């Protein structure tokens, strides 16, 4: 007989503590779609995606029913289109973006990722053409997500690409000015991008990935916060154990769902992303976990240490629960998507500089942060360069997803709704890094001995 306590604990996690599977993402390779004719390429892309992921949404819904756990998103990630598009013209890349949107509409999925380029060392003509139309592509589509990897620990930092991205972000904000600059929420700039990430906006199907793969991202900040609350005034060693045990349970559910989805869709299981992904719902916040650990407010001194411990314990607990882990794996700190982060930013406890420090010890980076609409392009470039440098030097993934909210100033806020939440516009240091950025070229790859 199943233990009553176990049953009640699981049901409580799902019903009261917002435990859910954040996403089942099917990676689909587009290599075999390559064609020198753009229309032919688009037809092949559409046909392949809609055939391979035909049953994705229905399967997700069935598994949701079977295990009684919400599966919030069903998504598709594809091979970076700048690779399969080759020397396609800028207009051709917009056609590809619209094709991805059409496929997403047909499938009924929430997002499709892969309007992406890998330019850490330099840019091909295709990558350049694609990057040049990212703002237009994201304005003319709703569910297509774009990412650009501008740096890696092995290649260094491509400053020319960063300069292009600052300008792309500004233009994307302008083009969608009537809709809270929403295009920027679908665009992320990476260092050391993972190739099997199920989370948006950065998901794509990497070059070493199989024909198709099922990657799953779990959530569960509310479950961790409740477990910490129940643990009371224990010391940090005990607290780390509490987090590990909870992360284990959360990840096991992710593995179960991933196995079932892979079986039903006859697709290889890829990875489970050991993530603590918040939502704007009260009680589903990473900031609340940090506050439950003992901080008066997220952003207080001590936040980086608390987050480092949380992130490490989540990984230690999760690793044993899953046969393959990957993606971004760690606690996410997207400001607009986390009720506790929003509150901390609004009360002035959480600043951009503190967020930058936090990204050195946790997953992802400066995520879903709204900044004043009149922020100069070079300042955005500078923010990206700083964040990317943290990833490159520390051999980890970092990313930047900024929203320079057109026409708005610090202290105001932008409302995206749904999972994207509400972003308080944060104040910025606007001293200019322009001369440094305009030097262009590449920052060389860092040395890996003489560590200090």
């Amino acid at each position, binding site marked *: *007989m*199943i*233990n*009553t306590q*176990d*049953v009640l*604990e*699981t*049901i409580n996690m799902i019903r009261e503590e917002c435990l859910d599977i954040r996403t089942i993402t099917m990676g689909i390779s587009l290599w075999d779609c390559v064609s020198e004719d753009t229309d032919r390429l688009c037809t092949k892309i559409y046909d392949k995606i809609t055939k391979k992921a035909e049953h994705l949404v229905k399967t997700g*819904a*069935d598994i949701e*029913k*079977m*295990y*009684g*756990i919400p599966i919030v998103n069903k998504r598709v990630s594809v091979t970076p289109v700048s690779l399969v598009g080759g020397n396609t013209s800028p207009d051709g890349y917009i056609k590809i973006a619209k094709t991805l949107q059409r496929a997403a509409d047909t499938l009924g999925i929430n997002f499709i990722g892969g309007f992406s380029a890998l330019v850490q060392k330099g840019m091909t003509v295709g990558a350049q053409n694609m990057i040049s139309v990212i703002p237009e592509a994201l304005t003319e589509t709703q569910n297509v997500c774009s990412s650009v990897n501008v740096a890696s620990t092995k290649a260094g930092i491509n400053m020319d690409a960063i300069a292009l991205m600052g300008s792309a972000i500004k233009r994307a904000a302008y083009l969608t000015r009537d809709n809270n600059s929403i295009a920027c929420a679908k665009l992320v700039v990476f260092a050391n991008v993972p190739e099997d990430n199920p989370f948006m906006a950065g998901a794509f199907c990497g070059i070493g990935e199989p024909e198709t793969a099922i990657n799953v991202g779990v959530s569960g900040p509310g479950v961790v916060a409740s477990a910490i609350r129940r643990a009371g005034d224990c010391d940090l060693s005990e607290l780390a154990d509490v987090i590990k045990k909870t992360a284990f*349970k959360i990840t*096991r*559910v992710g*593995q*179960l769902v991933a196995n079932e989805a892979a079986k039903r869709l006859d697709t290889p299981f890829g990875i489970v992303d050991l993530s603590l992904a918040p939502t704007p719902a009260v009680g589903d916040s990473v900031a609340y976990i940090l506050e439950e650990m003992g901080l008066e407010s997220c952003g207080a001194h001590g936040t980086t240490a608390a987050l480092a411990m949380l992130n490490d314990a989540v990984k230690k607990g999760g690793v*044993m629960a899953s046969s393959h882990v990957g993606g971004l794996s760690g606690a996410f700190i997207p400001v607009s998507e986390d009720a506790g982060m929003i509150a901390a930013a609004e009360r002035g406890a959480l600043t951009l500089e503190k967020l930058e420090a936090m990204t050195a010890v946790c997953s992802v980076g400066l995520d879903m942060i709204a900044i004043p609409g009149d922020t100069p392009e070079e300042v955005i470039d500078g923010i990206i360069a700083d964040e990317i440098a943290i990833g490159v030097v520390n051999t980890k993934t970092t990313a930047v997803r900024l929203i320079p909210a057109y026409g708005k100033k610090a202290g105001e806020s932008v409302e995206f709704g749904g999972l994207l939440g509400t972003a308080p516009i944060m104040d910025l240091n606007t001293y200019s890094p322009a001369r440094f950025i305009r030097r262009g070229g590449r920052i060389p790859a860092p040395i890996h001995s003489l560590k200090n």
Partner: protein
Amino acid sequence: MKAVITVTGKDTVGIIADVAGVCAKNGANILDITQSVLSEYFAMIMLADINELKVDFSDFVDALELLGKQKGLVIHAMHEDIFNTMHHI
């Protein structure tokens, strides 16, 4: 394959009979029941064999949820694997 059915709500006459009725109608064989009533609050956990289920599992889940709505109870049916994987190595 087994399903765990949980029922919570205000105690009334015939809850077990109603749930058992839906199980019987759909071909789910009840294996075990744990139930308690605490100051008029009813809580039951039921384990049922669903190998011979006559309908899709999702339809069975819907049928139980509908019964719950009609009787003012919260009824969930979940595949046992979610509990096994979460709580056992």
